[in-house]
């Protein structure tokens, strides 16, 4: 990576507790423009909480979070504006049940005045093409399989033309045969230079697309590095234990 790369997301010493449960402990992390960061770690280690903090679905108790130069913890920051540039994909898709596939994708751009309805629909059709679902525009979301739903959810996030995409275990709720399609879409997205922060248990995928892998455990980043460093020469003992479990599972 070249020196003049821009910092897209800057996180400094964030802390978060749910009651007595100290979920995030002094976490700092920078994500560069065009970088793909993959977060791994055991369940309950705080990965989702951290990811959801980046678009303020979860509020930290202390620390600094800067996205694209906006201090999102400053009450004066219009968080809705910032969120327009951060796409998010959820484990359970969260497609809007009261709309068709096309309406799911066009809702936000039209509501937020980014595009006219016609423009949004054209864009939606293009996106459906890229995620491999060109013929699903007018069906109800409930008629889709899990893999199809997740690809629509990715298209919905992309419709806002975000420059950062957050993924929280996007394939964990899918039948194994559906996982490949979704990962394929994400790989292509990474190739376009999208800045991505991904929580996943797909280690093969992580090796392939990540510029950096971050290992979470007990609310702390225990180790981070290139995929080679993390997967072939892990230093942290807990990372070693974790990898031995997930690789042989």
């Amino acid at each position, binding site marked *: 990576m070249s020196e003049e790369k821009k910092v897209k997301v800057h996180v400094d010493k964030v802390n978060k507790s749910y009651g007595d449960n100290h979920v995030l402990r002094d976490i700092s992390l920078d994500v560069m423009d065009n970088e793909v960061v993959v977060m791994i770690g055991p369940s309950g280690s705080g990965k989702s909480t951290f990811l959801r903090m980046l678009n303020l679905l979860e509020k930290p108790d202390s620390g600094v979070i800067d996205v694209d130069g906006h201090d999102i913890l400053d009450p004066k920051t219009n968080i809705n504006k910032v969120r*327009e540039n951060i796409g998010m994909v959820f484990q359970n898709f*969260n497609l*809007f049940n*009261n709309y068709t596939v096309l309406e799911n994708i066009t*809702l936000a751009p039209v*509501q937020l005045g980014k595009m006219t309805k016609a423009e949004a629909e054209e864009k939606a059709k293009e996106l459906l093409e890229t995620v491999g679902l060109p013929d699903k525009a007018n069906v109800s979301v409930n008629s889709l399989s899990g893999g199809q739903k997740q690809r629509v959810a990715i298209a919905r996030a992309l419709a806002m033309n975000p420059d950062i995409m957050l993924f929280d275990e996007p394939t964990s709720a899918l039948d194994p045969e559906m996982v490949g399609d979704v990962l394929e879409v994400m790989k292509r997205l990474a190739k376009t230079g999208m800045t991505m922060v991904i929580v996943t248990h797909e280690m093969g995928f992580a090796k392939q697309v990540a510029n950096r892998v971050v290992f979470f455990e007990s609310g702390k980043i225990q180790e981070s590095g290139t995929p080679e460093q993390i997967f072939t020469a892990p230093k942290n003992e807990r990372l070693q234990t974790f990898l031995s479990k997930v690789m042989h599972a």
Partner: protein
Amino acid sequence: MVTKRYKPLLAVMVAFVLAIFMAGTRADAAQKPNYIISTDAAYAPFDFQDKNNQYVGIDMDILKEVAKRNNFTYTLKPMSFNAAAQMVANGQADGIIAGMMINDARKQVYDVSDPYYQSGVAWITKPNSKIKSLSDLKGKTVALKTGTAAANYGASLKDKYGFKVKYFNDTDTMYNDVVNGNTAATFEDYPVIQYAIKNGMKLEVRNPKDLGNGGGVGFFVKKGENALLLQQFNTTLAEMKKDGTYDKIIDKYLNSSQKTFVGEASDNNSMWGILKSNKSAFWKGLVETTKLTVTGIILASLWGLLLGLMGTAQSKFWRGLSTTIIYAFRGLPLMVLAFFIYIGLPGVIGMKIPAFTAGLLTLILNEGAYTGAFVRGGFDSVNVGQMEAARSLGLSHRQAMWKVIVPQGLKMTVPSFVNQFIITLKDTSILSAIGILELTQTGTLIVARNSQGFRVWGIIAIIYLVVITLLTWFSNWVEKKIN
């Protein structure tokens, strides 16, 4: 942030409420003094509706004569007896004439006229019954109507004379129980049973010369107020007794043919006859019930929707307010709320509220609270992921609510809405208590006149069922459209 969007709706509601309050305060421009007189809507022979649905009775004729001779006008407020008495005690009405017995407790609260009729509790059997004295009732069963003074009197003699009691909710059923020989006797206010007997009830009073708890019946005003009105009443009553007007009035109600008031017998002994001779009354009652139901449903739904939205607002204040309002108005019995608004509230805000307005407000607040609770529940039951997905795209809370949460939440509540509509229709009948002349009150008045409880209530029940069926069909049609 959220509240901005709801403000116009709130403004409309407030404007509406103000408008209906205003409607109750239209000033009367007449120069003659106008008194508000409350009365019992159904207490023959003192107060009841005749076959033309005009309020008539001993009280009505005396009142009319007093007004005429003293050159004042009056607005009559017929309703349930307790509500009517309360209105005077609270200063919302100037006087009450309702076959009301004079006693010491009432003298604490009201100033009372000279008695214009002697009343008391009679005990009654079938004609030519072997039971000649109260002692003959030993071991027998006596029919009493729940919650009346006559019943209390009857029950107080139970142990002394060794009889059993059986309670009824409906006067007519109670009389017929004695006529049919199921129970041996009953207790009733003397003028009331006199009138029923005049109207063909096959019963006989055993103690006309020796009434229990006997005493006078008077006209009451609030203590310390309307002294002039009271004095005019007494003076005119004395004159009427002298010039024969009084006797004519009593005679008219207690010694003339029953047909005068209740219509031909043929009009009263079949459902069809009753329906025909009272068709305009039934129709008016139905229209009033429909008006209450439809406006009640629309406004309660809007209010409930607003409460539901408030309950899912981001601000703690609005959520708390919604919870409090729902809690308070769901907890209050509908009738208490109706009395509070109709009888209690005017004293505080210093203006009178028309019965229909009070009834409508009652429906809005009560049904609206239930609606608010299930609407809020509907919104809450939409998966949180839907909100998070909407917000993560940059939609505001308000946009997310309107575009994503509300449509899904409302769809889930459609069956609850249908249910609430039907409950609202049924609840309008409770508003008969504040004298709104809807279907139930219409039934009460017709029965008070013709004593045909079974047939009249049968007709009323059928009308309700028809309306409920229509409402259900309509709701199902709407439900289908939505899905």
